[in-house]
């Protein structure tokens, strides 16, 4: 298959016809009354070139000009909130240099644990110290779907604090799936099979997991507390998967089966563009089909030693970012990358917006948050983060605006995400020292 074809086949053209069968009229009516909300995090690393990033403000927050890097997002301008003036203050309380703290605090709103990762300032940092906002949201809105959340990556390789965004809890970093083929098989396995075959597989799998849980139950009572905690975490995951297997429920076959992506070498510059295409297509179908309501799509990682030859950007990504805005050649390469990431973001928005759900689209019912671990690579700053929010969470956020904040803590924004997802009773998130209420003006 042509590497560009996957998205076309799997994403847009197939996504449209199955909606009717996916939702009964009753469900549709329900969807109108109470939108199915989704929370998506889109990530790329090492900061941006601000001069081509931030909109030019107009006389009011609805009148602004989208900047060069974001031209691909113009069709969705009314459904996006651009921000400036949000700082990641919570990164400063603990150990670590800014790549580490930026990754670890972006979604957790907490400083890092102490550990053994060496930072640029010589400090020794550990993992993130608490649950990330996407996983907190998944606990709330992800219970009824086959997958509580899915974490996808595009060359999001590596396995230490600079490479991870999502956390189930302190030091429990979630790895992303970087292989579209594996992601596809995991999400869409069994689709297209006969209903009785699907039922049989589910019944057997459920029975095996029950037996596995029984084996957990026989474990030696003499294990220490640390080991018990570790095993309980494992058991909880098994239980969660077991609980989601609905043996006699409607087969996922009602959701049109996208085309299986071809085998592609992961973590490779020659396949990166095609992998991005495939992962975005898979993610969109998974959200549109309601296989999951919480997802992360992570491009690269804070080390970011990647080139983008298809953009004629042959510099090492991390090196380019250190040079930054004052070096025109490097800045030019970063802007090309910023523009490419914005195009990927827009592609995802388009796929979600094409899916109707009641009188709204899936995008309307979602938050698609675009984050970064730095604001500007050359300074490794956590001031004025380049955060963008698309979708209104079913009308909860007022979109189509450019909001200029006065150095507010990004943890307030994370709390706003909780509220937007239906958790308005929550009064704080992450480290309470950096959270004094939801971000004013979003709602």
């Amino acid at each position: 298959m042509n590497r560009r074809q996957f998205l076309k086949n799997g994403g847009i053209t197939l996504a449209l016809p199955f909606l009717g069968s996916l939702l009964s009229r009753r469900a549709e009516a329900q969807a109108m009354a109470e939108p199915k909300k989704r929370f998506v995090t889109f990530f790329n690393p090492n900061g941006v070139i601000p001069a081509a990033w931030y909109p030019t403000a107009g006389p009011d927050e609805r009148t602004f000009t989208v900047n060069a890097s974001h031209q691909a997002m113009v069709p969705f301008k009314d459904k996006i909130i651009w921000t400036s003036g949000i700082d990641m203050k919570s990164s400063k309380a603990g150990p670590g240099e800014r790549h580490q703290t930026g990754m670890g605090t972006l979604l957790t709103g907490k400083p890092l644990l102490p550990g053994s990762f060496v930072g640029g300032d010589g400090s020794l940092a550990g993992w993130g110290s608490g649950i990330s906002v996407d996983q907190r949201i998944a606990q709330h809105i992800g219970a009824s779907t086959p997958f509580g959340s899915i974490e996808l990556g595009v060359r999001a390789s590596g396995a230490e604090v600079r490479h991870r965004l999502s956390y189930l809890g302190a030091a429990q970093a979630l790895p992303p799936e970087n292989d579209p083929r594996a992601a596809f098989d995991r999400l869409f396995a069994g689709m297209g099979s006969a209903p009785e075959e699907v039922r049989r597989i589910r019944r057997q799998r459920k029975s095996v997991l029950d037996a596995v849980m029984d084996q957990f139950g026989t474990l030696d009572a003499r294990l220490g507390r640390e080991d018990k905690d570790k095993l309980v975490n494992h058991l909880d995951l098994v239980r969660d998967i077991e609980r989601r297997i609905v043996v006699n429920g409607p087969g996922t076959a009602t959701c049109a089966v996208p085309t299986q992506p071809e085998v592609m070498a992961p973590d490779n510059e020659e396949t990166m563009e095609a992998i991005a295409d495939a992962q975005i297509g898979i993610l969109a179908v998974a959200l549109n089909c309601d296989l999951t309501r919480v997802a992360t799509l992570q491009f690269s990682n804070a080390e970011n030693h990647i080139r983008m030859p298809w953009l004629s950007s042959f510099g090492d990504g991390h090196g380019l970012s250190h040079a930054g805005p004052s070096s025109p050649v490097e800045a030019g390469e970063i802007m090309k990358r910023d523009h490419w990431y914005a195009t990927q973001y827009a592609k995802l928005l388009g796929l979600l917006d094409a899916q109707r759900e009641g009188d709204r689209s899936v995008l309307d019912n979602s938050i698609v948050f675009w984050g970064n671990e730095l604001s500007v690579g050359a300074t490794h700053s956590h001031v004025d983060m380049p955060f963008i929010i698309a979708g209104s969470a079913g009308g909860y956020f007022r979109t189509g605006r450019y909001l200029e904040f006065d150095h507010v803590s990004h943890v307030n924004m994370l709390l706003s995400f909780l509220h937007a997802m239906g958790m308005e009773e929550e009064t704080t998130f992450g480290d309470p020292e950096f959270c004094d209420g939801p971000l004013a003006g979003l709602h």
Partner: protein
Amino acid sequence: MPGTRMGSFVGKVLASTVVGLATICAGCLAQPGEPNELPRPPVVIPIIPGKLICEHPEMPATAFTPSRLMTRFEYDNTVRDLLGLPASMTPSSGFPAENRVNGFDNNAVAHVVSPLLVTNYIDAAEALSALALTSNRAALVPCDPAVITPNACGRQVIARLVPRAFRRPATPEETTALERFFDQALIDDDFDTAVRLVVQAILQSPQFLYRLEPGDPSVPGGQLMPLIGYPLAARLSYFLWGSGPDDLLLAAVADGSLDTTEGYRLQVQRMIADRRTRAAVRHFHTQWIETEKLATVTKDVRTFPDYDPALRASWAESVGRFVDDAYWNGGGLSAFLNDPGVWVDGPLARSLGYPAPPNGEWKKMDRDPTIYAGILTQPGIMAALALPNQGSPIRRGVFVRERLLCQTMPLPPPDVPTMPPDPAPNLTTRERFKAHTAAEYCRGCHVRIDPIGFALESFDGLGRFRATEAGKTIDVSGELRFLRDASAEGTIDGAVGLANKLAALPEVSDCVAKQWFRYAIGREVQTADNCSLVNVETAFVDSHGDFEVMLAAIAETDAFRYRVVGAGP
């Protein structure tokens, strides 16, 4: 017998002299001025570790080790050995990478399950159970269900598989639960399906996936106790083989011989001599000397038009064979650091300009010992420590500091440009990188890095020898300073000079011992491990760098033979 020394020694943590030189890379620590931000004070860490001293060798001591979850390498080896599957099978290839600490994948604290991994376990167990039943049925099913009834035959399947899967005899509760599950499966499905399902349950059980070391009701949490029996056997087999104990090792536990000094040493020697140790040694090196990076290394075809992507695999295998020689052909650490030879297959021979061996075959080439010496002149290492369009004195210098000297190098600070200068027609690498050590701001760190990397400038981005660059003779003079022993510091002449100097440094030998020790115990080395590590260092130096002696010495340490009982419920 360690049991006689068991007791209340934990808490009397040994004083040590790990202080080292608590220097920082002066000049690399300024933070950019930004609105609303205060500069953070630099944190001082010991960059050059001092010589460890064991102050109380008579007192057994170690630190707590959490239960350990199988890594992908261990999972693959274990299921292959357990189910009799071919060595080419890597059922964990789609599992997420383990969280890394100190470069190693087996850290007991960091390597934990995720939802993705638990799903992967389900998928792998389903595939493996079906495969084992079709390809190796006789080993799995020792009976005929038509003759002795399906239920009775199922009991035999369970009785045969569980002790090897759980690495100890099953408890009655474990057996009963599995038999009940099997009987229920027989009601819903046929015999073969029931076997597959029970195999899946076993492969996802915590007793299989984790090495669990239960405490003893008479020993309070935090106390030291000798590790004996089945858990000790599992520590040994996963350290040396990255797999479960074989039948001989389990038998040595059952007859009590493993818990005698002589019986333990016999098993250690037998296991080191086994081929499975070779695979585990190679696996260790893919992480310690970072050859795993070769799998995804990028080379720019504009700079290297004849670059053959098949080289990625050839480089890695070539280094693997070189490591094999040092470990198993008597060469030891000195061969590792000084052997000028290189293993080549077709693609690598063509890249290096040697006659290619017949397709698929490997040949070891002798090379000029005035140009080549040891691991640092292996093309796979030099190609991994390089950029797409050039070599990298920075990566090479940092590699020597971190991986061979066990020193700690901070990351470059934010406001320092880290773009490597592009190759220029009239400049050598040394000339292009001069700014690093010329600018006061960069010197603090780069005087430690670049003068090592420059000595390796004879090797280009594909690890090939070159005498000239940009039309000029390459200057390979360098320096090795900032060492534990200042009297050993001095200038070096090229790769051979560097290798000779490193081979003469006790801290290199100690560093190799420390990297292995870290890997073996699967956690951070603590002060309470000082005597253990010192013993390994001493055994390695005294044996003139004999790797087998060092591996055996690790198996003799308190850190290996004792455990600290976990905290209470």
